[in-house]
């Protein structure tokens, strides 16, 4: 793409903590380079405000969680050439999707002093449940290198590389001994998508699956191993029912354990 026709980019926020937008802001020098190569049309957290206009690339953070979100995502889709969902909320519904299936209006009155101000849908859902998504970046939050790689690919006009490998691949390349093997702790790395750089195992702790399911995630085998490490069935369910609870592979894993009746 030539300098004369810089691609127009928007970064939209839905129900989320803003952490994935911070991955953009934390790019450092790369953020300045990025700002030079694209026209940032809308990015509330960084300054530009123009959520309505046409863009080439729309990055969408957050899940669809309110009735207003339902309308807004349709509008964004209609005005964007490419739509990239970024982060666990946008790709699986996020931590707020823990309410799915167990939503109780009573909670709202117990928790909030002005419950009338809360207008949440019963379910928190990923962007792809509502509109066509061209590419998904998983992670809670996504990392700077992931953002750079996707932007680069799009600027070069090629499909972004979808890393569906397990966290273990990054963990071993960095030379971290497996924490499941050395410490007997329930690491989600073997079923979780790479992209974080094996942050948690690198610090000697267990991966908690914030990047969502990898391809060919053998959740049954991992759940069986968690049990043999001493986790109760309920604790195993909690491993899968966390940040990406609604990701199909993790949802199915939890359902399987529950169905076996001992949760």
């Amino acid at each position: 793409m030539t300098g004369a026709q810089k691609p127009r980019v928007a970064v939209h926020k839905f129900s989320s903590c803003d952490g994935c937008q911070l991955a953009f802001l934390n790019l450092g020098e790369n953020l300045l380079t990025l700002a030079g190569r694209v026209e940032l049309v809308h990015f509330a957290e960084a300054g530009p405000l123009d959520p309505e206009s046409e863009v080439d690339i729309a990055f969408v953070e957050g899940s669809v969680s309110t009735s207003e979100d339902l309308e807004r995502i349709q509008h964004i889709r209609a005005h964007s050439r490419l739509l990239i969902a970024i982060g666990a909320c946008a790709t699986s519904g996020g931590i707020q999707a823990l309410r799915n299936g167990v939503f109780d209006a009573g909670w709202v009155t117990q928790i909030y002093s002005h419950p009338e101000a809360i207008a949440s849908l019963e379910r928190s859902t990923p962007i792809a449940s509502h509109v066509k998504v061209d590419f998904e970046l998983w992670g809670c939050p996504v990392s700077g290198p992931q953002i750079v790689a996707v932007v680069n690919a799009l600027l070069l006009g090629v499909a972004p590389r979808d890393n569906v490998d397990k966290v273990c691949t990054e963990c071993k390349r960095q030379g971290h001994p497996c924490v499941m093997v050395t410490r007997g702790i329930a690491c989600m790395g073997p079923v979780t998508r790479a992209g974080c750089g094996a942050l948690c195992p690198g610090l000697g702790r267990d991966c908690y699956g914030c990047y969502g399911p990898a391809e060919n995630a053998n959740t049954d085998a991992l759940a069986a191993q968690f049990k043999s490490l001493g986790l109760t069935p309920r604790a195993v369910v909690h491993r899968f029912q966390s940040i990406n609870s609604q990701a199909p592979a993790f949802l199915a894993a939890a359902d399987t354990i529950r169905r076996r009746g001992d949760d």
Partner: protein
Amino acid sequence: MLVGQLMQQGYQCFGPGVENGAIVLHELATPDAIPRGLQAVQSPGRYQLTQDPEQRYFAWANGPQAIKPLAFAPTESLWRVARDASGTLQFSAVLPAAPKRALIGVRACDLAALALQDAHFLRAGARDAHYAQRRDALLLVAVQCAAPAATCFCASTGDGPTPTAGYDIALAELADGFVVEAGSARGQHVVDALRLSPALAQHIDDARKQGESAAAAQTRRLPGRNLRDALMSQLEHPRWDAVAARCLACGNCTAVCPTCFCHAEVDQPALSGESSAHVREWDSCFGESHGHLHGFNVRPDIRSRYRQWLTHKLAGWHDQFGRSGCTGCGRCIAWCPVGIDLTEEVAALTAREATP
């Protein structure tokens, strides 16, 4: 004394130490940095540090890695391309800095594995410059295994526990000292500088016996023969389904395997759009992209990936390299998070009564 001499001769010294609950080969800061009494209990899916009651230096079998990452880098740039002022693309090779490195404490299984990595990366007509640069800078100080782990089976593959080739210096640790043997001119140069007294016949005999009892102490084994036909005739054996049900396809076995050499190459363009790095990184036959061909995947499920790994390692290598790709280190057993045991799988797959 040995480490001090190596440092004096300008070697960056790597030796055993503990990191994150495992024995690793890491850089030694001082000549006396090798700890005494390190030991680890290994079993399928478990690795636990313990103390050697005899406080020996090398009474441990192995850790998750040894030579491999220091010769075949887990991630490295192979070349770069940048646009110059006139807009022309300029390609340049990126070669690693390769300081002289001495690795102290490598095992017979590691040396046998290195010979296989050499056969792959240094083969005539396809010499890998990056690997060669690091490999040539390595001085290998091998140690006889006196206390193999429960996961070890090098005696059955014919690769240990006593190093017989591929080292610059070999050590055998006895109750009252070390028997030292040079295996190369470089090694001899270091050993000469140590001005050691000649080993007594008794010491040499003790070292031999120590090797024999270490071999006898191993409880696991692989059949010593060529398993190619035995495995390739069992490609539809139900055991593949059984192991696939347990396997996480995490690729840990391939990462810790000292002979696995598969890698992927990816391009990492800079955000400026003016340059790009061509990067090689460890890959695994347990990953999706490894079996990805244009438009489809030849190994879409875990069953086909495990089968690929095992049959390549123990069957295909015979055709490629004239021997099996397993040197009996047992890492794939200990470091498999669910404890899949290669020797057990092979026994089940090749047991005649289990043939469907």
